C-alpha cells in the first residue's frame, strides 16, 4: 500500500492549484474546467482507496507520514513537525470532502462566468486546507491549515457572490481571525504548560493528554474555553452563527455547496479532537452546559429558519439547527450519542449539500431565491421535484434515509445519558424529539413553497434538470438511500476510535 500517501492526498490539490495559476496554463474556460473535474474525480477515487485499505479493527492512527524538507522536519527546534495520520473519523471526513469538491465542480459550470483560473485554484486551495485540518497530527500544523482555509473562503465568497458578498465575506474572515487568536492563545499556553510539566517540547496532539498529568483546574478550564471559542464559530453555534446564513445567502450557488460541505465539519472535528480527547475531564464538567447550548441551537435556529424570506437563508439556518443535534450527541457522553453525532455530521453534510444543489438548480433558472417569488415549480420541473423530495424527506429524518439513524441515535443517547442532571437531560432530549417534528415543518414548508403551491405565470417556460444536474442529484440521492438502508457500514469504520475516546469520557 505504499502508493497510499497522505502527503500526496493533502498536497496534490495545492500543486494542481499552482498548475492552474501558471501563466502557461491555457486561459480557456472549458479546458480549465475539464482539467479540474478530471483531477477532482481522480482525487476522490484516490481517497476512496484509503477507505478501502483502512483497517477498521485498528485502534489509533494509521497511514502515518511525515512531511520533510530535504530530510529536515518542519520547525524541529520548536517540537513542531508536519506529521499526518488519519483515524476512522477523519478518514470519513476526508472522503466526504473530496466528494463535495467533485460535486461542486460539476455544479460550477453554469454559475461561474468569470475568472475561471482563480476560481478553480481557490477551490483546490480550500480542499488542501480542509484535508490538512483533518489529517494533521500536530497542533500547530492543524492551526496552519485552519488559518489557511480562511483565505480561499474569502475569495470564493467575495469574488463570485452577489453585490453584498464582499461585506459578508469580510465579516466572516474578521470574526474568524478573532476567534482564531483565542484558539492560538490556548494552543500556546497548552504547549508550554505541557513542556513545563513533562519537560518534552512537543505539539503532537496524542501526547498532549491533559488527563494523565497534574494540571490545575482553572488552567484546564481556561485552555478549554479558548479552544471552544475557536471551534464554535465554525460549527456554528447559536450566538456565533450569524456569519453562516449571511455568507450562504450572498455567495454563488456552487460556493454554497462547498461551504456547507466543508467548513462545518472542521468545527465538529476540532471539538472531538481537542476538547474531547485532550480535556476529557473538563468536557465532562462542561457537558450539561453544552447540552443546553445545543438545544438552544436547535430551537432558536429552527425558529429563525421558518421566518426567513429567502430559500438560501432558510436552508442555512436549518443546517445550523442540525448542528445542534451533533453537539447534543457529543455532550451525552455515551457511545450511542457519540456515534450518532459523528454520523449526524456526515449525514448533514450530504443532505445539506443536496439541498444547496437543488437551490442552485432553481436559482439558475429563476434568478431569484425569494420564497414569495417561487412556487409550483414541480409542474414544470418534475425530475427536480422528485429528487428533492427524497432529499427533503432525508433531512426530516424519514426511515431508510440517511438522517433517520443518526437522529434516533442522538436522541436515544441523550435520553439514556448518565449525566448527573437527570431531569435536565431528559427534558433536553424531549425538546430535541419535539424539534425533529418542527424541523419536518420548516423543510417541508420549503418544499411546499418552492415546488407545490400555485405556479406563477413567469415560470411556465422553465426547463427541467439538465442531464448533468440530474446525475449529480441522483448520485447524492443514491448515497442518501444507501447510508439510510445500511447505516452500520459507516458506523463500524469509526467504532474503534469512538471506543477509545469514550473510555476516558464515560461517566
Amino acid at each position, binding site marked *: 500500500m505504499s502508493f497510499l500517501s497522505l502527503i500526496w492526498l493533502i498536497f496534490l490539490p495545492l500543486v494542481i492549484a499552482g498548475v492552474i495559476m501558471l501563466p502557461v496554463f491555457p486561459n480557456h474556460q472549458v479546458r480549465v474546467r475539464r482539467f479540474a473535474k478530471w483531477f477532482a474525480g481522480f482525487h476522490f477515487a484516490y481517497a476512496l482507496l484509503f477507505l478501502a485499505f483502512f483497517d477498521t479493527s485498528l485502534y489509533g492512527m494509521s497511514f502515518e507520514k511525515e512531511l520533510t524538507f530535504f530530510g*529536515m522536519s518542519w520547525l524541529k527546534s520548536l517540537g513542531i513537525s508536519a506529521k499526518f495520520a488519519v483515524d476512522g473519523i477523519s478518514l470519513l471526513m476526508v472522503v466526504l470532502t473530496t466528494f463535495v469538491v467533485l460535486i461542486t465542480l460539476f455544479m460550477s459550470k453554469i454559475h461561474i462566468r468569470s475568472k475561471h483560473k482563480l476560481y478553480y485554484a481557490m477551490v483546490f486551495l480550500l480542499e488542501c486546507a480542509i484535508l490538512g485540518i483533518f489529517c494533521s497530527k500536530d497542533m500547530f500544523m492543524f492551526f496552519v491549515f485552519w488559518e489557511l482555509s480562511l483565505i480561499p473562503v474569502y475569495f470564493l465568497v467575495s469574488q463570485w457572490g452577489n453585490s453584498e458578498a464582499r461585506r459578508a465575506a469580510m465579516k466572516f474572515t474578521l470574526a474568524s481571525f478573532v476567534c482564531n487568536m483565542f484558539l492560538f492563545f490556548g494552543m*500556546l499556553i497548552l504547549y508550554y504548560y505541557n513542556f513545563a510539566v513533562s519537560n518534552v517540547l512537543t505539539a503532537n496532539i496524542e501526547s498532549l493528554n491533559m488527563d494523565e498529568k497534574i494540571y490545575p483546574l482553572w488552567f484546564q478550564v481556561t485552555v478549554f474555553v479558548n479552544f471552544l471559542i475557536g471551534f464554535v464559530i465554525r460549527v456554528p453555534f447559536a450566538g456565533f452563527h450569524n456569519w453562516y446564513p449571511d455568507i450562504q445567502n450572498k455567495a454563488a450557488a456552487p460556493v454554497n455547496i462547498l461551504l456547507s460541505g466543508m467548513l462545518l465539519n472542521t468545527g465538529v472535528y476540532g471539538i472531538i479532537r481537542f476538547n474531547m480527547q485532550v480535556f476529557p475531564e473538563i468536557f465532562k464538567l462542561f457537558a450539561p452546559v453544552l447540552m443546553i447550548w445545543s438545544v438552544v441551537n436547535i430551537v432558536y435556529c429552527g425558529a429563525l429558519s421558518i421566518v426567513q424570506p429567502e430559500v438560501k437563508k432558510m436552508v442555512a439556518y436549518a443546517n445550523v439547527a442540525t448542528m445542534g443535534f451533533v453537539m447534543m450527541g457529543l455532550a451525552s457522553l455515551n457511545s450511542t450519542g457519540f456515534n450518532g453525532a459523528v454520523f449526524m455530521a456526515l449525514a448533514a453534510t450530504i443532505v445539506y449539500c443536496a439541498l444547496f444543489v437543488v437551490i442552485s438548480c432553481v436559482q439558475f433558472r429563476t434568478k431569484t431565491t425569494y420564497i414569495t417569488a417561487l412556487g409550483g415549480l414541480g409542474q414544470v420541473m418534475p425530475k427536480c421535484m422528485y429528487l428533492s423530495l427524497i432529499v427533503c424527506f432525508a433531512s426530516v429524518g424519514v426511515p431508510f434515509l440517511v438522517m433517520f439513524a443518526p437522529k434516533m441515535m442522538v436522541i436515544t443517547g441523550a435520553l439514556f445519558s448518565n449525566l448527573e442532571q437527570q431531569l435536565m437531560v431528559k427534558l433536553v432530549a424531549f425538546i430535541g424529539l419535539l424539534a425533529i417534528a418542527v424541523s419536518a415543518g420548516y423543510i417541508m414548508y420549503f418544499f411546499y413553497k418552492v415546488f407545490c403551491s400555485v405556479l406563477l405565470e413567469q415560470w411556465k417556460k422553465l426547463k427541467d434538470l439538465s442531464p448533468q444536474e440530474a446525475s449529480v442529484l441522483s448520485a447524492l440521492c443514491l448515497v442518501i438511500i444507501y447510508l439510510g438502508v445500511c447505516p452500520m457500514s459507516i458506523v463500524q469504520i469509526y467504532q474503534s476510535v469512538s471506543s477509545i475516546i469514550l473510555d476516558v469520557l464515560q461517566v
Partner: protein
Amino acid sequence: MSELVSAYLPELIIIVFILFNLLASLFFNTYLYKLSKWVTLLGIVFALASTFYLQIEPEAYAFDGSFLSNIYTVFFKILILISGFFLTLLSRNMIREKRDRAFEYFSVFLSGILFAMCAVSATDFVGLFVSLEALGLSCYMLLSFTKSPDAKQLTFGYLVQGAVVSSLFLAGLSVLYGMCAHVDYQQIGLYFSQNQPQILLTFCLVLMTCTILFKLGLVPFSSWLPDTFQGASYPIAAYMSCVPVLACFGVLSRMLMILLNYTFTMKIVFACIAVITILLGSLSAIRQESLKRLMAYSMSVHSGIMLLGLCVFSVYSVSGVLFYLFCYIFSNIGAWSAIILLYDSGKLENLNDLKGLIYHRPYYVIAFTVVLISLAGIAPTCGFVSKLYMASAVARSGFVFLPYLIISLLAFVIMIYAYWRIIRAMFRRIETNISIDNNVISSKFILYACAFATVGICLFSDKIIQLCQLVAYYM
C-alpha cells in the same frame, strides 16, 4: 592593522565606497548617474562577501575594545546589507529624477548603512550615541532629497523631535556615568551585579530608551511616523522602515541585556508600551487611505510586537526577535517594492487607485497578496512562523506576560484588517481603466523574490531558527 581588518572590514569597504561616491559627485554627476547605482551595489556586495572573513570566534575587537565583532553583530550586518542591497535597487526612479545628485544620494544612503552597522557593534554608550546620531543625520539628509515644500514641512517634526530625544539620551547617559563611572556595557553590567541598583537606574533607562523608541515609532513618540513617511519619497520611506529598525533592535537587545535584568517594573512598562503601540497603530492603520501612511503604522505595529518579545528577555525571546526581524525585512521590502512599482508606473498611491487591479496585473496582485499575508502573519508564509515563535517565547516566560500576549494578538487582528483592505481593493470587481506599464525589472524582481522568500522561509524555517538561537546564545 590585522585587528582592524578582522573586525571592521565591511565598514571599511563601505567607507571606501562612500568616499568614491562623494568624489564621483564632483566630477561626473549628470551623465553617468546610472553608474552610481551599480557602484553602490558593488560596494554592498563586497561588504557582504567580506562579512565571511570577519573573526567571530573568539570575539574580535577594534579601536581599543570599543568596537565588537561576534556572530551576533555579523548577523545584523548581513541583514542590514541585504536590505541595503534591495533598497538600492528600489531607488531607481528616485535617481532618475535627480540625476545631478545621484552620487550624493548614494553616499548618504551608504553612510546610513555604515552607522547602522556601527551602532550594532558598539560596546560602549558613547560609540552607540555617535552611531545612532549619525544614522539619524543620514535619515534627515535623505528626507531632504524630496523637493516639494509640503514634504519639508511634514518631515520637520521628525527633525525637531529627533533632536529632543537625542538630548534626553545624553542626559540619561550622564546620570548613568555618574553612577558607575563607566560607559562600557560590560563594566556597567559588572557594577550593577555587585551593587544594588538604585531608582536612578530606572530613570536612566527611561531617558536612554526614549531615543530608540522614537526611531522605532513606538507609542509616546509615534506621531512623527505617518507624516514623515508621507513627506518622504518612496525609496526613502522604505529605507526608514528597514535600516533604523534593524539597528535599533540590534542595540536594544544588547542594551536591555545589561540594564533590564535589574528592574522588573521596566519590563512591565515596556510590555505596556508594546501593547498600546499595537492597539493604537492598528486602529489608526485601518482608517488610512494612503499606502505610505498605512505602511508607516505597519512598521510601528511590528516594532511593538518585537518589543513585547524583547521585554520578556531570555535567550529564547531574543532569538525570536532575530527571526522576526529576518522575516519582517523580506515581507516589508516586498510590500514596499510593490508599492514603489505602482507609484513609478502610474502615480498610484491610494487604496482607491488599486481597485480592479486583478484584471490588469494578476501575477503582480498575487505576489503582493502573498507579501501582505506574510506581514499579516497568516499561515503559509514566514510571517506566521515568526509570529508563532515570538508568541511562544512570550508564553514560555510565565504567566505575567500572558494578558499582554492575548491583548496584542487580538489587536493584531485589527492590523490584519488593515492589510486585508489593500487585498480587497485589488480584487474589487470594478472595471477601471488603469494603465500600468511597469517594465521596471529590478522592482519586479524584488517583489517576486520576496514573495518566494516569504513562503520559502516558512518551509525551511527550522534551520534559520536554529541559527537565530545560536546567535542569541552567543550574544
